[in-house]
């Protein structure tokens, strides 16, 4: 039991400054996409009645793009505190599954490094990191670095959008200008291609896609991500075990 901290065979997982820097740099293209949505959030937050300071505090602490935009829908003079919390929680449930999938990198680290890094988990940095992990990188610093990159882009964009909301609103409120709304699809699709190992994965991907699409049509919110991911994982487990 004493030696079982590192569960994956092969080299031990490390957590280096070099890894952090590489994760940060590799994530910059995704950070730019996040920046576009951060500006939109900043603008909309002020229009919903938040002060620029409040919008910034929210981005620094809650730090969850889709959840924050949904919270704006509920923003009011009398804040519905519980509804806000429940909404944010439901929208972010997918991160439970994403965090669990980081097992090979994070389980062997000290709790401080693990649980500090997890604060910065986002869809974008996770997708990039989990791909690096699958391709054999053994430096979990990459996960923190990519998360920090998204954090900085999201927060500087929030500040810009909120403080210059009226100005920014006039010129930039739609990420589909420059095709930035397509950027995330392009990134996730490319990372998915890099996951391709052979035809044996097809049933897993097919079920994940079908379930996700059906859930998307029936249940509002982000449930399609977690249920599609679960469905694919279960099919994979049944076939491989």
């Amino acid at each position, binding site marked *: 039991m004493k030696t079982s901290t590192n569960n994956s065979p092969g080299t031990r997982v490390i957590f280096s400054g070099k890894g952090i820097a590489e994760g940060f740099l*590799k994530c910059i*293209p995704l950070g730019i996409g996040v920046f576009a949505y951060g500006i939109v959030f900043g603008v909309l937050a002020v229009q919903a009645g938040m002060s620029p300071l409040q919008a910034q*505090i*929210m981005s620094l*602490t*809650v730090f969850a793009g889709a959840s924050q935009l949904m919270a704006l829908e509920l923003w009011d003079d009398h804040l519905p*505190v519980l509804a*806000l*919390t429940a909404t*944010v*929680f439901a929208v*972010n*449930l*997918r*991160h439970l*599954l994403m*965090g*669990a*999938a*980081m*097992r090979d990198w994070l*389980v062997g680290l000290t709790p401080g490094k*693990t649980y500090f890094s*997890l604060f910065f*988990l986002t*869809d974008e940095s996770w997708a990039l990191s989990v791909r690096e992990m*699958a391709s054999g990188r053994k430096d979990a610093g990459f996960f923190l670095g990519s998360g920090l990159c998204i954090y900085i882009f999201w927060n500087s964009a929030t500040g810009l959008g909120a403080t210059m909301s009226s100005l920014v609103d006039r010129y930039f409120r739609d990420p589909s200008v420059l*095709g930035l709304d*397509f*950027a995330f*699809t*392009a*990134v*996730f*699709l*490319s990372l*998915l*291609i*890099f*996951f391709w190992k052979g035809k044996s*994965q097809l049933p897993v*991907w097919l079920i*994940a*896609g079908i379930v*996700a*699409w059906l859930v*998307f*049509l029936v249940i509002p919110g982000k449930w399609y*991500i*977690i249920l*599609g*991911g*679960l469905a*694919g*994982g279960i*099919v*994979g*487990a049944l076939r*491989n*075990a």
Partner: protein
Amino acid sequence: MLEDGNLVFAASIILMTAATYFTRAGGLFIISKITPTPRIRAFLNHVPASILVAIIVPNLAEKGPAEFISAAITAAAAVFTRNLILSLLTGLICISILRAFIF
């Protein structure tokens, strides 16, 4: 009145932060407490690509021909270059051209 508002704002922020952090840290916490069987391992190995599929499919399904074509070309670029930035740029250039001139 203003102080009340600030208090409610602070409470909202604290609860929302707790909710998001719980989802970020909770999955790993649970999985770190159990010794994975081969079946759990296989499950976790298939979750990442499945989540990517689950993000992509509904987002593309509600879009039009400009996005479909751009997605196909992006995927082809990813296959041939094996480079994230190159395939991302290919996709962005493609979608910009298609939206500006064709669809």
